[in-house]
């Protein structure tokens, strides 16, 4: 590997937008193929890669559409490349057919959804509107995607390595679910992993291409035999169960003495921290559980914290999606509250502290039922 392609030293402090940090992180983690189609608020990712991939001998393609972009990814992943695409809600919707194919073919690849307001064209402001789409597979069929939710430029830069390694370990697509704020915001970060030498990534024994001297391999998702497809479905199921038992990430803050626990990810978790810190100054004990993997969902820890505190508050930038997973994890054993700001509006720390106080005051609440604290 030519050392000149290493742009930043490991541990070197740099100032980048979340989108740029993510783009550099993917190159650093070994991505050498990108295809995508522009959409705000993720445009800095393709913009950055359009010059950066050429520096490292990679390929950048601005496709004619999202459908074409995702099918190029299917081909690149089938050939064993660390492939990447990125988009925002509407573009991810268009890519779902291809993502389903890639999940069915059990090929690893990475994609990012830098969320904006929806549904439909919605707007370009930061939002968490695509949690359902991300965590329920998104496309057709019976499959799962590993979902990582960064809350900073640091995590945008460093998650690509974790994502590619995990995707390849399980032969499964992995996605980064960010939002316009995480993507557009600039803040200091450093890379915690060394620049990956792609020549040293072991060749995968299932990829196609260069088959001279060995038996032909076929990657296909059409299984006309019901028995073969049923077996494939149960094989996938077993894989998903294995991922669930082995790969769940979360961050816990101030939960030890908390009287209520906020469950929030990404931007909502960041802003909830402002509420928690201010609450602590006033003697109000709020804790935070930040899921880092949205699928698999950290249900065990949420269940434990819910039983300990008796009150759980889900904060989201939508009208209530993650809260349904929280409700399932709580399983009727604690009070479940929800506060959301959809449409691209971002809640303030004071706003969240206010609703946490309200939830703390509420009595005789039926456990397990979702109590929406917005004044609608």
């Amino acid at each position, binding site marked *: 590997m030519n050392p000149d392609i290493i742009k930043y030293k490991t541990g070197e402090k740099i*100032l980048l937008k979340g989108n740029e940090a993510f783009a550099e992180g993917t190159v650093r983690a070994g991505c050498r193929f990108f295809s995508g189609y522009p959409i705000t608020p993720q445009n800095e990712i393709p913009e950055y890669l359009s010059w950066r991939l050429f520096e490292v001998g990679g390929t950048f393609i601005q496709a004619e559409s999202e459908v074409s972009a995702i099918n190029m990814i299917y081909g690149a992943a089938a050939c064993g490349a660390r492939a990447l695409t990125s988009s925002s809600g509407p573009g991810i919707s268009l890519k779902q057919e291809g993502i389903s194919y890639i999940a069915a073919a059990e090929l690893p690849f990475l994609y990012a959804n830098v969320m904006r307001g929806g549904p439909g064209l919605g707007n370009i402001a930061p939002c968490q509107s695509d949690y359902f789409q991300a965590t329920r597979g998104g496309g057709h069929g019976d499959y799962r995607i590993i979902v990582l939710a960064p809350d900073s430029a640091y995590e945008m830069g460093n998650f690509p390595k974790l994502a590619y390694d995990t995707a390849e370990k399980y032969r499964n697509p992995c996605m980064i679910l960010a939002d*316009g*704020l995480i993507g557009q915001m*600039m*803040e*200091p970060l450093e890379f915690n992993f060394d620049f990956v030498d792609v020549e040293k990534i072991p060749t995968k024994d299932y990829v196609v291409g260069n088959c001279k001297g060995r038996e032909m391999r076929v990657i296909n998702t059409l299984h006309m035999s019901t028995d073969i497809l049923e077996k494939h479905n149960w094989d996938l199921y077993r894989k998903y169960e294995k991922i669930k038992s082995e790969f769940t990430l979360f961050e816990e803050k101030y939960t030890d003495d908390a009287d209520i626990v906020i469950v929030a990810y990404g931007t909502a978790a*960041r802003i909830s921290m*402002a509420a928690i810190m201010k609450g602590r100054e006033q003697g109000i004990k709020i804790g935070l559980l930040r899921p880092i993997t949205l699928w698999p969902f950290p249900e065990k820890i949420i269940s434990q914290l819910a039983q300990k505190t008796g009150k759980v508050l889900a904060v989201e930038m939508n009208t209530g999606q993650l809260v349904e997973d929280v409700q399932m994890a709580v399983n009727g054993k604690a009070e479940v509250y929800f506060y959301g700001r959809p449409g691209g509006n*971002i809640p*303030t720390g004071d706003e969240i502290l206010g609703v946490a106080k309200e939830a703390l005051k509420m009595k005789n609440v039926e456990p397990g039922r979702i109590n929406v604290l917005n004044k609608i």
Partner: protein
Amino acid sequence: MKQEIILAGFGGQGVIKAGVLLAYAAMKENKRCTHFPSYGAEMRGGTANCSVIISDSLISSPVIGEADTVIAMNEPSLIKFEPRLKKGGLLIYNSSIIASKPKRSDIELLAVPANEIAESVGSAKSANMVVVGAYIAKIKAVSPESVKSSIPIVFPGKEAFLTININAIDKGMAVVK
């Protein structure tokens, strides 16, 4: 120390980059910082703004509710962001092209003829550096040395303008002294 700054102007005035420069200088001083730009439909001649937070401790939200400082480079920015200032906050405004007077009496005002000063140092485009100079002289959120040494990194390939930019910062600082 925590400073929440909104920089606003029309597209092309360099308010986003001026914000990046402040953030970069803060990072150099091992301070925490965030920079959040308005994004999407902005274009040259349209409006642009960014929120910069510089702090000694962890910054949870990069979104500014009430700002400590507003730097307004044109009239629409003054109208839009003057109400967003904290009581007692600082309003720096580009008096070269802002004809009207700020309305509030509970804030501190600093008029900077940024365009005239920028032209006097050799480039009208350095008006953004003039207000950065005025800001760091008034509120010592970052040192002039950190700002000046960050210029070549924040404006790569613009070495020819380095001296002009540094002179613009110095002249901006002189407005306060």
